[in-house]
Every structure is written in structure tokens, then in C-alpha cells.
């Protein structure tokens, strides 16, 4: 479950294999064995999740896309992607 006060990072043992030419990455989740295809948005969010608090990660995402996406749309995009990554245990709350 998302906590706005929580800190988030890539889940330990999740393996990310980038395919830079395609602008996407695959993620292997050993806890619930699956391979997921991450589009560039999802992949970028995973990269931003380095153990910092949620608001900082959100702010970094919006800052990075502000020239191309309206702020409200960027927030929606970010929250949707973040929730999906969390649900699939590709990212998780960190200590």
C-alpha cells in the first residue's frame, strides 16, 4: 500500500534488464516469478526509486517531464505507474 510518507526503492532481488534501443526494460520479480515489460515511464520511475521519500521521487519525475507533460497529467501518469510497480512488487517501501 502506498504511503506518501514512505521511502521507496527497487525491491531487493528484482532484476532489471534495460533495452535502451527500445526505450523499455524487462523486470524479473523472483518473489512472484514473472517477467514484466516496462515502458519508458515505468522504467524511469523504477530508476528514481532509490530509497528516498515518495514526495521527492514524485517531484523529480514531474521536474523531468515538465517540458513535455502538463503537471496534472504528469502527476496522474506518475501515480498510475507507481501504483502498478508497487502492486507488482517491482518497487517497495524501504527502511
Amino acid at each position, binding site marked *: 500500500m502506498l504511503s506518501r510518507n514512505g521511502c521507496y526503492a527497487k525491491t531487493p532481488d528484482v532484476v532489471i534488464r534495460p533495452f535502451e*534501443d527500445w526505450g523499455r526494460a524487462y523486470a524479473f520479480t523472483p518473489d512472484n516469478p514473472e517477467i514484466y*515489460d516496462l515502458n519508458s515511464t515505468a522504467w524511469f520511475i523504477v530508476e528514481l526509486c532509490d530509497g528516498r521519500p515518495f514526495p521527492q521521487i514524485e517531484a523529480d519525475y514531474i521536474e523531468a517531464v515538465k517540458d513535455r507533460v502538463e503537471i496534472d497529467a504528469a502527476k496522474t501518469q506518475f501515480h498510475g505507474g507507481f501504483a*502498478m510497480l508497487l502492486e507488482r512488487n517491482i518497487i517497495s517501501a524501504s527502511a
Partner: protein
Amino acid sequence: MNEVFSPEKVPAPPGGPEGRPVPRLDKPFKLTICVTQTCEMDCKLCYADCGSSKTPELSTEQWKTFIDELVSEGFLHIFFEGGEPFDRPDFEEILAYCSRRLYVAIRTHAVGIDVARARRLKEMGVGRLYVDLFAAVPEVQDELTGTPGSYAQSVNGMKNALAEGIGVTILGILSRKNHLDLQNYVALAEEIDADQVGILRLYPLGRARKNWSDLSLTLDEMMTALNGLKVPPGIQLMQSWHPKDGNCCWQNAAVTPTGASVGCPYLREYVDYGNITDMTFLETWNHPLYGQLRGCEVEQNCPDCSATQGSHGGCRSTAFAFHGRFTAPDPYCVHNNEGVDLRALPEWLLRQNT
């Protein structure tokens, strides 16, 4: 973000048909290990013509060394098949070595998957079983495997895996022995709560080639059987005929029980890119013929089929089998068949039976 897929739904990458470059990988992310050529059954459709092992297979330590190499090269997904993988006494040890490092799927007849084994597979993180049923009619399956009771045991194995939460895909190789009963596969999936059914083409390899005249169908018969299938919501049907006859060579990698890198298990009788005990896998990946096949150089192309993976020409194994050229059209696509009678194997293939 709406592009999160399971491994069996790898999407078409940029590139592909209509003048765009075909998809290209510097190195693959998934690989098939045909871990053994042994099996206790005597299946008429066996591509490996397996029985007791005829040539020395890679040892446990050699496979472990190879798995280390795959992990260090960024592979994510390993697919085990045989022979029958579980016939190899050290197979679970090899699986355990992959555990949590690679996504693992296994092609098996599932006969030996009892409750305890299913539990161990779950604990080792096995993601999915692909279970061969040559017919979804018990007596026909038992006849085709040469093993009385094998149908019931396979279904039991699938149920045990599903009970542990391991995904199951029921595989049926479309042949004269099952084309009138294809709906039974879907019914079985519904009955045991499996979420995928794969209908596969029959390849003229191994024992299946020797039994070709008894097993093979015309393309019309195949299409009639496939088009008659009714698949309810909740069950995914996988098939590789038009309009889904993609050329997957661009992403395929496979190694035989003796360590030969062959690109795809269905190419095992036609190519050899080098042995992984003599060189790294990526050195075999750079073999000129491997590169040529990944480049999807083909004489003609079906745009609908190409769109499935962004690559051209359909399956290279059946194209080569029926035409003797790796650039030939795949006769299993209705638009590329060009009058090829799929019941009649070319002379050069028939000579391999003698």
C-alpha cells in the same frame, strides 16, 4: 503505464515489417536449455527421438557454469525442455541453482509431478509449466506416448502444479490424432483451471518425422481445426499459424543436451553454432548463420504475421524443412504456402530416416 506484460506476451519491439528494420538484440534475454535427451515414454511425436541417452550430455557442473554465464550476461528467462527434463536425476538441483536468479519455465509431460515435487518447484520459484498432451482424449494420449495411464498422470501433474499456484499451459501438437478433438484441450483447461492452451505445429523432427505419414495434416485441415476452436474468456490461446506466424529467430536462443548452440529447439537438426563447452554463448550468438537468421532475410513475407513480432517470414525451421533454404517462405502460413503439401516431406528429409 499500461505496458506491463507477462513473459509470454512479449510485445513487438520497434522495427519490423513494411520497410522498417527488423528488431535486433545485442544479446538475447531468454534461452532454452534442452537439458536431456532421455525420457521414459516412447512418444510417436517426440522431436528428440529420445530414449536412453545416446551421447554424453553436459554434466551438472557444466550446466551450473553455463547458468552463471547467462546470469552474468543479463539473461532473465530460462526455458527447460528435453527429452523429459525430470527424467534427469539432477534436474531439480539445476533448477535450484537457477532459483531467484532467472525466471524459469519448464516443458514437461508432467507425469512425475506429484504433490511433493510440485511443492518443491513452487519453493524453487518455477514460474510456469508447459505440459505436452498429444491428445486430450485419454486412450489416444496413452497410445501416442506408448504408456498406459499417461494421460491421467499428466493431468494429475498439472493439477498438482496448479494447486501450488504454478501456472500451467496445456500444449497440443496439432496432428491427425487430435485435430477433430481440439476443443477437448480447452475443455480440459476449463476443468482444471489452467489459463493457457497452446496449439503447436507438428515439426518433421526426430520420431515425428519417422511417423509423418500417420500424423501430418494438410494446411486446410489445420486451419479448419484452429478456426473451429471456441475459447472462453479467461483462457488464452497460443498458436503460430496465420495471422500469428511470426519469425522469432531474432530473439531465440537454445542449447542442446550436448551443449550445441542451435538458436531454437526446432532448428536442432539443421544448425550448429558452436558448443558452449568450447566457447562462450555470445561467441555462438555471433556465428554468421545465426546472425543471418536473426536478420530475418526472407524471400517473401506476410505482413499480418510479421506484425506479431515485427519480424519477417514466419518460422525458419519449417521453411527450411520444406524448401531446404533458410530464406524460403514458411508454408504453414496460408499466404506463403504456395501449394506446398504439408503431408509430403521432401526427399532430403525422408532420407534422414534411413
